[in-house]
């Protein structure tokens, strides 16, 4: 806009600043809390300025964790969360790209049936099917393993559906031109569909990574071995102690919040680029 209306400007900025402050405040409190000495947080008044124990709290949490709460070092837990989230993200993306490709570009029998089958599973999130899924995973001896943590969460109707919608907006002539140019189905997928889907892939990557990272109930259910404890589980366990060590909990919380932020920052370049240079 080229208009110059100082009051509107002022008003808009005030609203934005209030909004940002509301979002930032809890994060700030977490940061402050994670730098206090043990016990400082139990005195009733919440300190609003950073304390001086930051480095030692983070170091302690990173290297040794809270064994009394059965919570391994944060480094280990972050790694576990990362592996699980990546496996879920990459798995979901590959499977949904391939199934959307099959549904849109191949005329096989029961094609629509399979599409609806996938679509119907949208109504069955993990929490709803958790007991039977647990049974299956247990029978397959996948308890306490990364496979057990990630595979049951990989099937994704949402992403399949979104990719299907996107593929259907690609003009049919694109496929035909590729066929005349001597590209078989897989070449077409790799050389044309994938590059055109980059924006969608980046956006879904962020969403799925956060979905995987935030998994709580499922990991809690199927892992007992501390070698597979994820950061979200660890935080839960620390807070469930009789006298939670809040400064360490907060340090863990801050560390747990970082990877999703990094993923967003990294992927952002891809999808902002895509959004501004719509290629069709």
């Amino acid at each position, binding site marked *: 806009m080229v208009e110059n209306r100082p009051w509107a400007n002022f008003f808009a900025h005030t609203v934005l600043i209030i909004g940002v402050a509301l979002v930032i405040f809890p994060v700030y409190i977490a940061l402050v809390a994670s730098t206090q000495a043990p016990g400082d947080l139990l005195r009733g008044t919440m300190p609003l300025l950073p304390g001086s124990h930051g480095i030692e709290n983070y170091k302690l949490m990173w290297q040794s964790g809270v064994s009394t709460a059965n919570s391994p070092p944060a480094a280990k837990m972050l790694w576990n969360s990362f592996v699980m989230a990546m496996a879920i993200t990459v798995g979901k993306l590959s499977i949904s790209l391939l199934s959307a490709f099959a549904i849109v570009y191949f005329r096989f029998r029961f094609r629509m049936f399979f599409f609806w089958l996938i679509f119907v599973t949208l109504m069955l999130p993990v929490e709803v099917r958790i007991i039977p899924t647990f049974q299956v995973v247990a029978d397959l001896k996948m308890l306490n393993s990364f496979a057990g943590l990630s595979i049951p969460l990989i099937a994704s109707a949402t992403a399949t559906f979104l990719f299907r919608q996107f593929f259907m907006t690609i003009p049919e002539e*694109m496929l035909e031109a590729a066929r005349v140019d001597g590209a078989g189905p897989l070449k077409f997928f790799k050389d044309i569909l994938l590059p055109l889907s980059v924006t969608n892939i980046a956006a879904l990557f962020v969403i799925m990574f956060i979905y995987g990272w935030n998994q709580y109930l499922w990991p809690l259910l199927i892992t007992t071995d501390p070698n597979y404890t994820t950061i979200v589980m660890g935080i839960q366990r620390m807070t469930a102690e009789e006298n939670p060590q809040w400064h360490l909990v907060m340090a863990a919380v801050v560390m747990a919040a970082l990877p999703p932020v990094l993923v967003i920052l990294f992927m952002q370049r891809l999808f902002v680029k895509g959004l501004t240079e719509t290629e069709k």
Partner: protein
Amino acid sequence: MASITLEGLKKTYAGNVDAVKGIDLHIEDGEFVVLVGPSGCGKSTLLRMVAGLETITDGTLKIGDRVVNKLEPAERDIAMVFQNYALYPHMTVYNNLAYGLKNRGFKKDEIEKRVRIAAKMLEIEDFLERKPRKLSGGQRQRVAMGRALVREPAAFLFDEPLSNLDAKLRVQMRVEIKQLQRRLKTTSLYVTHDQLEAMTLGDRLVVLSAGQIEQVGTPMEIYARPATMFVAGFIGSPAMNMVPVEYLHARGSNGLLDNLPDGTDIVGIRPDDMHLTPPEGPHLIVQSTLELFEAAGAESHLYVRLADSDQPTVIRVSGQPPVAEGETLRFHVTRNTLHPFNSTTGKRTGD
């Protein structure tokens, strides 16, 4: 390079839609054939069957001496230019041209050489590193042509390649396509619904209607002697006027209509064969009321209604005659410009 032979080619879509109802056509090596017909008559379907993008329900398709009914498009040695160009949006112009060659396992320097030659021919050398979205419509059109050229295929297939361009560019590209084809002498099959494009581009014209061939011939043959009323109405602009013989008889025909072929009950008269000034020799005279006068620069179109009838008719005259709307005009037609038809069969009766 090769000839293309269609024998009884048929296409039935799901739901018993007979899009193409048995086409026999032989296209000589190096010939430029234009398929023309109204929208929905099956032109694209026919072209896509030749390309291999649509399965053939019945009949035989040969490219050269090979029957290619079952071959994939890539194996037919053809190249196609699409109406919406279908360029790969994420690839540079260079890669758009090179993609088909890469897939066929050409060496890098051979690809480079061919792309440069094609780019030079089409004057797109300056855009080779750009993405298609940064090109104008005309430039995209050229890239689409380039993608076909680099392959040096046995035949080019065009599906209304100019219909997304504005009028001026369309004329320019039309001329360029014609010159290019003359130079390369590659067998070409060109689909269009634009009769002007059809008349000017092709060595031979195939007029299609409802999935069937109405007439095949050189553009001038078809213009001079349309075989059916459909062709007569479709080729030529403004369209040919159809006047019942009875009407002319009733106005006194000076015996000029006596030797019309048997079965003739309607005659076609091209708008340019209706003269305001009487020609030498015997002719018919018909009165009409001028309803609309359309000046189109070098020529004018007079939309008239024949006297005592509601038959609309168009007259084309050069320049701008001194006439006013509402005026009653007399126009003159000589016998040799009449196209005799039978309105029941829709076919030409002779001459």
